């Protein structure tokens, strides 16, 4: 039954993908890509990846769609190129598809417990997490502790991308500093009754759920990345309803900048604290009296750092697009 449901969802996914490529109206394409992400999240969920599904739903269907729409508002929402299909790309792409499909016949089928991918380090992580780290969510344990270097690198990619967007889009103010302040007070959807009432009801719960996901990430699906995406989705909704000015009063640009840098610094700081206390970089075992308490403390701080940077970056990027819009 679950297999059939999965096949159904995957087929829908392919249909949506063709729709995205065919749509001449970019607004339609962006909306379809939101649907694409939601279907993808459902597929991730039935493949046992609860953490990934949560992230994909918040990021792909929520934040990405809003950013795309922001970019469309600043550029053009119609594809004006030639409508004809070019044959060379179709031939190349079809041949490559057939080759990749031919290659899949050597792959182990879905769910095979004997597949090579399940033989190497994965069983070790599953067995040793309760003993070494003692938190139920193995995904969080690997993310924040076993593979902490990796996550640090990813966090700095996000940090760099946020700074890059600011350089490209923020309006330089008189003193040379970058600013995101909307030139005129944006109206938002304040005069539309239904979105306003429903949105006002939803925003606090989305942010509350984001905080829950942040601090419950060791025990259930969740963690800094998911929480950051959820909280920024909540604030973006607030900004869409009440106007960007109101959202910037709730969370000022200064605060957002501090969050972007502070989160990354917190992560590195936890790593350096481990070194100062006699361990290795990002070794949390030395942070407290016993290794397990140290791991708990380290994971909590590192996840908080991730959450701060992700929230700050996504909201800054949103405000950068929104402020640009009003300048035109």
């Amino acid at each position, binding site marked *: 039954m679950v297999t059939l449901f999965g096949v159904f969802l995957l087929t829908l996914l392919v249909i949506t993908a063709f729709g995205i490529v065919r749509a001449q109206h970019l607004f339609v394409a962006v909306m379809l890509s939101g649907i694409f992400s939601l279907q993808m999240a459902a597929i991730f969920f039935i493949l046992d990846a609860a953490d990934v599904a949560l992230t994909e739903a918040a990021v792909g269907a929520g934040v990405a769609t809003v950013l795309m729409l922001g970019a469309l508002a*600043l550029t053009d929402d119609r594809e004006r190129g030639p409508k004809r299909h070019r044959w060379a790309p179709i031939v190349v792409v079809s041949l490559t598809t057939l080759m990749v499909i031919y290659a899949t016949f050597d792959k182990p089928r879905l769910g095979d417990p004997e597949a090579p*991918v399940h033989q190497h380090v994965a069983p070790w992580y599953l067995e040793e997490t309760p003993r070494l780290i003692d938190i139920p969510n193995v*995904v969080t344990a690997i993310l924040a502790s076993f593979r902490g270097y990796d996550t640090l690198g990813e966090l700095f990619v996000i940090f760099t991308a946020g700074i890059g967007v600011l350089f490209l*889009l923020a309006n330089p103010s008189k003193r040379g500093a970058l600013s995101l302040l909307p030139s005129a007070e944006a109206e938002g959807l304040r005069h539309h009754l239904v979105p306003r009432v429903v949105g006002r009801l939803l925003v606090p719960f989305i942010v509350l759920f984001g905080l829950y996901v942040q601090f419950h990430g060791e025990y259930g699906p969740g963690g800094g990345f998911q929480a*950051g995406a959820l909280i920024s989705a909540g604030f973006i909704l607030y900004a869409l309803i009440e106007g960007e000015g109101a959202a910037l009063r709730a969370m000022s640009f200064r605060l957002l900048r501090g969050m972007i840098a502070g989160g990354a610094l917190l992560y590195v700081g936890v790593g350096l604290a481990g070194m100062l206390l006699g361990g290795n970089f990002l070794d949390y075992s030395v942070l407290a009296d016993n290794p397990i308490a140290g791991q708990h403390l380290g994971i909590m701080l590192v996840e908080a750092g991730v959450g701060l940077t992700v929230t700050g970056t996504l909201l800054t990027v949103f405000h950068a697009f929104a402020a640009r819009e009003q300048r035109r």
Partner: protein
Amino acid sequence: MEFLGLYNYWVFAILLMTGLYAVISRANLIKKLLGMTMFQAAVFLLYISMDKVDGGTAPIIQVGAVDQLYSNPLPQVLILTAIVVGIATLSLGLAIVVRISETYGTIEEGEIREIDEE
């Protein structure tokens, strides 16, 4: 039902190449970015398909559960961070497209080239 065990990988192949098709055949820059995100999503699907173990559940260890199988947590970690990095790079790409549009007044590849050649 045995042949359906590879269905996820076939969909991966189709999505990957649909994304590539949008990147190489469309002239519109936003369409290209949409194609790129689709390409990326296909890779996510490949990784997450590999994490599934028959009879397994999400890798969150339950107290008191004996002999419970768990799906592989490692691909999930890799993709979890990749999704958020993906949105960060997508926003950077969109910002560049916005600046191109402000400079050239168009986001169609051919028109940009014509303006450049003038």
